[in-house]
């Protein structure tokens, strides 16, 4: 019985990794006053090579709005969070079309950032 449960668990773990974006390489920018944010319906990432990903899959910024619309569905505002993970070295040419696409899809944008370290006074 436990063996079957074990195999089922492995199966679901592998299935869940399909939407995982942990393989996408990026470094967050730092900012003050960042908050802990809740879970998102979708994650858009701009990686170190300035490629755009939607839930871990490469996508063009032109196709992003159309791809996000069915994911967000008819969820009310406040439940349409889209995490935007932008590599700290990205430029406006990379991230502005992505912000525009999230806006077009009606997503609630959340910039994923790292809290700025306060230097120790010694």
């Amino acid at each position, binding site marked *: 019985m436990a063996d079957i449960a074990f195999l089922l668990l492995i199966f679901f773990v592998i299935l869940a990794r399909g939407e995982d974006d942990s393989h996408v390489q990026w470094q967050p920018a730092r900012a003050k006053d960042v*908050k802990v*944010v809740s879970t998102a319906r979708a994650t858009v990432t701009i990686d170190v090579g300035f490629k755009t990903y939607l839930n871990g899959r490469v996508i063009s910024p032109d196709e992003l709005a159309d791809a996000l619309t069915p994911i967000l569905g008819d969820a009310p505002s406040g439940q349409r969070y889209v995490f935007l993970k932008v590599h700290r070295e*990205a*430029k406006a040419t990379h991230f502005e079309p992505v912000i525009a696409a999230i806006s077009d899809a009606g997503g*609630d*944008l*959340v910039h*994923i*950032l790292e809290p700025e370290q306060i230097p120790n006074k010694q």
Partner: protein
Amino acid sequence: MKLRRGKLLVDPPDCSSSDIAFTLIIFFLVSAGEHTETGIPQLLPKTEAKAEKGEQSKNIEVSITPTGIVLNGSPLQLQEFAQRIAEALKQKTREADRIVVVKSAPETPYPTWIGVSQAISQAGGVLTLELESERTINVE
């Protein structure tokens, strides 16, 4: 001198090893899911057509370049910009007057853009992006 090893009276049950493995997996799955994200939420109304020219001229205009920030024609650094934008928005009472039009140079780094957008939001402004393709996006 020889030591006598006593016989085990009960063999350990074999089936318990898979139960332990199962419990360990549950433990690692739960602990892996504990990772929390931190960031800044921004409410984005749907993309709107460019505001009328007459109305746009009243708005505060901000240009971001890789070297600095230009507020209504005067070049500033981020700290000074945050103070100036807060002063400028204090005088505005109507929601429509609190719109801040932000135009970024193509080479503007993301951390600079985030700093400017954060300063505008904290001052109570409504950030509006002006893109190269002449589309306007409001960011609350």
